[in-house]
């Protein structure tokens, strides 16, 4: 069904259809309405979920970890400082291989305090061990929330999955979203079958072990195997979901007019939509420009992205967060795919911090800027000098 809804509502709808056993959330702008919608569903008896209203995000993730270890299907949502408070326990969730799904309404980190969009919060959790997916639109946020559930619970993967959607730009903006019938979603995600439920008293199990230097390393290597299994599972899930919804989800990234492109932008999130419109305009003028929109950020598909960019002359990698003291994290990710071999010229653009708007003119400026560029350059887009 096609409806006009905000990104919040799209995420809450996906959650309603998945109907997890437990949702533990603490409200924070710009995520609050996800929690509010879901609380309403619970209150009205539309879902049987146990909603745990906790006193902080640290507790939210702790409750999620406990519930997930117990064998429950668990979803949460947060943003910004909330994720910062949660991140200690997010590492625990990943280390324990708990398939917790989280919607992250991307927002900047303090100081200065700001409620608007950038990707600092996602970057903060970059090395947490959570899989991270970025949505371009409310539609993609809805679709990936559903796919994330299967990805997280895949037997070989078993990791937390974060679905990123740009705060305000996607969360608070009403867009046309096509939802699936409830039954289709329920069939798609299926029943959750936890391998070692803590509450199964007939099969006792010890969770949260202490590991000395003789085992910690091995357990961390085994955790990496979950990440290594994720790409294949991601593609399989995309394929099955595309057949279900009719929207083409294929690959770790979306290649937009990339085939013969000389100048290319690599970007994540809603800015990719704006960039597509600019690519169309410039293509009409005969300019060979293209876009690579990253869906799957962790694990990072560096080989596939390198292959897709190999024919380009110059690439602008756009990071919506500063990695203080170095080039942007996405930039380094993309460049790593070319380690030791020749590739295009790579420029890093930092953009859109704290909700700084990214109009089409700025994207056009990036494409123009690629005509003269040197690898390793760090540029700031839309900044007053």
């Amino acid at each position, binding site marked *: 069904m096609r409806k006009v809804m905000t990104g919040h509502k799209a995420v809450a709808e996906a959650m309603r259809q998945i109907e997890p056993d437990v949702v533990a959330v603490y409200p924070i702008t710009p995520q609050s309405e996800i929690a509010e919608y879901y609380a309403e569903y619970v209150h009205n008896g539309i879902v049987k979920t146990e909603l745990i209203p906790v006193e902080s995000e640290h507790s939210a993730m702790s409750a999620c970890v406990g519930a997930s270890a117990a064998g429950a299907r668990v979803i949460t949502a947060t943003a910004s400082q909330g994720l910062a408070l949660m991140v200690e326990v997010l590492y625990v969730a990943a*280390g*324990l*291989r*708990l398939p917790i799904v989280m919607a992250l309404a991307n927002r900047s980190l303090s100081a200065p305090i700001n409620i608007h969009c950038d990707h600092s919060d996602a970057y903060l959790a970059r090395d947490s061990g959570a899989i991270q997916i970025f949505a371009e639109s409310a539609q993609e946020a809805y679709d990936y929330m559903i796919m994330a559930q299967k990805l997280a619970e895949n037997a070989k993967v*078993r990791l937390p999955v974060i679905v990123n959607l740009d705060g305000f730009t996607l969360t608070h903006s009403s867009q046309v979203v096509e939802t699936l019938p409830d039954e289709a979603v329920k069939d798609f995600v299926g029943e959750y079958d936890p*391998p*070692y439920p803590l509450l199964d008293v007939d*099969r*006792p*199990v*010890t*969770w949260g*072990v202490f*590991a000395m230097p*003789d*085992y910690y*390393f*091995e*357990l961390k*290597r*085994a955790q990496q*195997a*979950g990440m290594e299994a994720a790409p294949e599972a991601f593609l399989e899930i995309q394929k099955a979901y595309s057949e279900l919804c009719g929207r083409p989800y294929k690959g770790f990234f979306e290649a937009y007019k990339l085939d013969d492109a000389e100048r290319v932008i690599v970007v994540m999130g809603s800015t990719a939509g704006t960039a597509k419109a600019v690519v169309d305009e410039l293509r009409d003028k005969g300019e060979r420009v293209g876009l690579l929109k990253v869906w799957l950020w962790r694990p990072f598909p560096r080989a596939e992205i390198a292959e897709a960019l190999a024919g380009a002359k110059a690439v602008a990698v756009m990071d919506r967060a500063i990695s203080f003291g170095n080039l942007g994290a996405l930039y380094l990710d993309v460049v790593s795919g070319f380690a030791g071999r020749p590739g295009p010229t790579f420029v890093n653009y930092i953009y859109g911090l704290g909700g700084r708007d990214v109009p089409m003119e700025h994207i056009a400026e990036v494409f123009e800027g690629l005509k003269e560029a040197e690898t390793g350059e760090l540029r700031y887009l839309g900044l007053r000098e």
Partner: protein
Amino acid sequence: MRRRGCTLAVELKSWKELPVGGVIPGGATPELNKTGSWRAKRPVWNAEKCVHCLQCWLHCPDNSFFLKEQKITGIDYDHCKGCGVCAAICPVGAIEMVPERGGGR
């Protein structure tokens, strides 16, 4: 590779052999890990002085008091670490901490 752990001789496993998330299926890890060997002082329980108030059983952090039909019957020296909480809490002085003379139990 063979190596001696603190209480057990164990075969260290490859990362590929470990259960997901490092869980230990079957639980019961205390059964395998005999923490009694860590003890420097051992509690000695005097059955005649004991009034079975169960304060020792309640406070023991290692669940090392044997209990049968609401009565203390002895101490699990395989797991008692010798912390002395039981001796401190006992209202009738029925538990005495004595130095270990080596040899575990």
